[in-house]
């Protein structure tokens, strides 16, 4: 093969590799959709979306209502964000605006380290450390509940929220802040009234990406939320979010049964939720970059 032919062949190879991401994303969606759709030969769509009872392995009358699973997912996600957003944005503001270089050089790698911890490890600590602690603090019988999962998820969302928010806050033009100082505002007033509002779109994108990670997180919630597929009554209820349901049941279910396909249908829902969140975050950041 001549040099020129080789050049041509590899151009084609690189191009195909370049397109692969699109094919894989479409492939994942198609595969989930095809398998998920097969579930509805046996399960009514109405039951699936409106019934709160998920008991697919009941011998006589299996029931496939995802409502309590969805509520479980939403509950722990909102709780986690309630914890992670103020802490994450606060820490990002400190790092971007106030932290001396020395402090920054310690904190930033530490945040990266936190991001690198495998989720199964965090779930493990939810069982052995946070669970007993919460049980004692609130006097409940065991600490494996929505609150436990939410705290773990908050820890896992923090690195994403902190690092992306910090970039956004850091990107605010210096002249904005200088104008604020010139008007007599101090550093705190400038942060609250000028810097944070101007970086709002970046911070919102950071929160969305953190939330995407939280909704899709499996191991930590599987281990720490207590796995009860019932409608939660409070933050101390055990819940079984969508991800945990798939993780628990996929390993035990026989292939190509309605139960098997129903787990793919849960996968479709998860896929669409995270896709929606990511596309929204994308939109917000692209608007933010154009400014």
């Amino acid at each position, binding site marked *: 093969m001549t040099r020129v032919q080789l050049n041509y062949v590899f151009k084609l190879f690189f191009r195909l590799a370049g397109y692969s991401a*699109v094919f894989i994303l479409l492939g994942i969606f198609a595969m989930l959709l095809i398998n998920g759709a097969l579930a509805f030969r046996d399960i009514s769509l109405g039951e699936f979306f409106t019934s709160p009872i998920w008991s697919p392995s009941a011998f006589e009358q299996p029931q496939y209502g995802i409502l309590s699973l969805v509520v479980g997912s939403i509950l722990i996600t909102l709780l986690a964000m309630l914890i992670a957003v103020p802490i994450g944005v606060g*820490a990002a503001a400190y790092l971007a605006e106030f932290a001396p270089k020395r402090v920054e050089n310690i904190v930033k790698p530490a945040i990266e380290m936190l991001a690198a911890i495998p989720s199964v490890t965090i779930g493990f600590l939810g069982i052995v450390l946070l669970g007993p602690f919460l049980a004692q603090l609130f006097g409940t019988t065991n600490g494996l509940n929505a609150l436990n999962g939410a705290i773990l998820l908050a820890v896992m969302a923090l690195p994403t929220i902190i690092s992306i928010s910090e970039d956004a806050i850091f990107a605010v033009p210096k002249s904005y802040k200088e104008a604020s100082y010139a008007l007599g505002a101090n550093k705190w007033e400038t942060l609250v009234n000028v810097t944070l509002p101007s970086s709002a779109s970046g911070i919102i994108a950071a929160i969305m990406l953190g939330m995407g990670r939280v909704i*899709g997180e499996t191991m930590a919630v599987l281990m720490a939320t207590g796995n009860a597929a019932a409608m939660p009554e409070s933050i101390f209820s055990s819940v079984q979010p969508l991800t945990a349901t798939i993780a628990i049941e996929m390993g035990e279910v026989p292939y190509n049964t309605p139960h098997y396909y129903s787990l793919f249908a849960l996968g479709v829902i998860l896929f669409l939720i995270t896709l929606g969140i990511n596309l929204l975050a994308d939109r917000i950041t692209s608007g933010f970059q154009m400014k």
Partner: protein
Amino acid sequence: MKKRIQFAVGLAFILLCTMLSLSALGVILFDIFAKGITHLTTEFIFGFPKNGMTEGGIFPAIIGTTFVTLITAIFSIPLGVASAVYLNEYAGNTWLTRLIRTSIRNLAGVPSIVYGLFGVALFVQAFQMGTSLLASGMTLGLMSLPYIITATEEALKTVPKGIKEGSTALGATKFETILLVILPVALPGIITGIILALSRAAGETAPILFTGVFFYQRYLPTSVFDEFMALPYHLFILSTQHHDIEGVRPLAYSTALLLLILVFALNLVAFYIRARYRQQT
């Protein structure tokens, strides 16, 4: 005066936020190191599980995680690097390129458990690989792909335009320039990105749950079609599914510690390469 108080309270609040974030890391590291170190003996690292995993070591899990990560690497590195080369060196700013970039960002956002489902449907079932090292490795490979592409592209972007033009001016074809000039210059950055992506894959549990991991094997896998033990899954089993959960807690802590050491060691290597490379340029 009011402004001063506001300033002090505000600063105290965001300082507290930073401390809280750090203390999360501190608590995790301290607890696992303090309670995991006692059982981390050579017997534990190089031994096989005994008595229903209540004694002995976790050598097969270490080997399994190593093997599956190697398969992940073989599968994801060539495709990921080639994809990044296309985006950085060939692709114009068209709607198709934007679609590719959007797809990559969204692939990174797909939950790991969904990759697991996809792995079952495609690799285990459709491609008839069964639950195996290969199916798990390829599932993890797909999951790592967006991270490898993004990191490689970042590295490729830092290659100065001048040396590319120099190579072209000397009569090299585009492929020769990529292979002999661009990739070698970007290599430290690419390797850093690859190591970080693989360390993430090595610690993942959800994608391998139903594609090939097995909780107890007394032998090591001999082919890519064997099932395997893995460190993260081992930790999951020891802390949730074992018949004597309280009894194996020390073993679970040591497994967690070993997993943390593995992941942090890979991260340190990556940071070291990045730091050295930054000093040179």
